């Protein structure tokens, strides 16, 4: 599973991209957030307030209950501010 980070989420995690293999119990975005938060202090800081973080699965915005599977591209980032 490829995980991407953008903006301050990327800065806090300390990397823009990583390949991860979460355990079987991680079945949705919320589960993945919980599991990723345990990987490093940077991850923990990035996900400290999950309400501030948005997600996309395979390049579509996704809610916390959206399923994630091996092979997915999952991204985490703050609310968008383009335009």
């Amino acid at each position, binding site marked *: 599973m490829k995980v*991407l980070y*953008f*903006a*301050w989420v*990327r800065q806090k995690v300390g990397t823009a991209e990583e390949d991860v293999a979460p355990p079987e119990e991680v079945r949705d975005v919320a589960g993945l957030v919980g599991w990723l938060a345990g990987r490093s202090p940077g991850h923990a800081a990035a996900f400290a307030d999950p309400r501030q973080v948005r997600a*996309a699965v395979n*390049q*579509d*915005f996704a809610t916390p209950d959206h399923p994630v599977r091996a092979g997915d591209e999952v*991204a985490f*980032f*703050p*609310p*968008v*501010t*383009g*335009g």
Partner: protein
Amino acid sequence: MPATPTIRVQAEPFDVGAETAALQAGRTDVGGLASFLGICRADGGLAAMVLEHYPGMTERALTRIAEEACARWPLTGCTVIHRHGRLLPGDPIVLVLTASAHRVAALESCAFLIDWLKTKAPFWKREEFAGGGARWVEAKAEDDEAAARWAR
């Protein structure tokens, strides 16, 4: 058949006159062309704005938003260009252009596109200040409200 939008995500500047001309080129069924040009302001000592985006998803999101506009309004054409990277005060950031036989369709779809783009396209702005500080721009509730008025 709805018009096929032109979507570009690029670091380079764009030419408003050329993009306007391109939506009219070779056709005489365009009665109105609306546009919105977003520009980097020099608020509060801003020295530069760095725009980060999600390559791949950005193009996908902009295409989806533009196709929605082409489905909702009878457009003859539609162009969305959004820059990324480091921009200076006065630099153009985003261009939305909509063309239609009728002015109301052009004006409404242009407002729709920029409102939706602000809440549905994966861009993030980081402001850098003359003093050396920097901060990520926070999303505004008013942008969500602006986008919400197009919900149906």
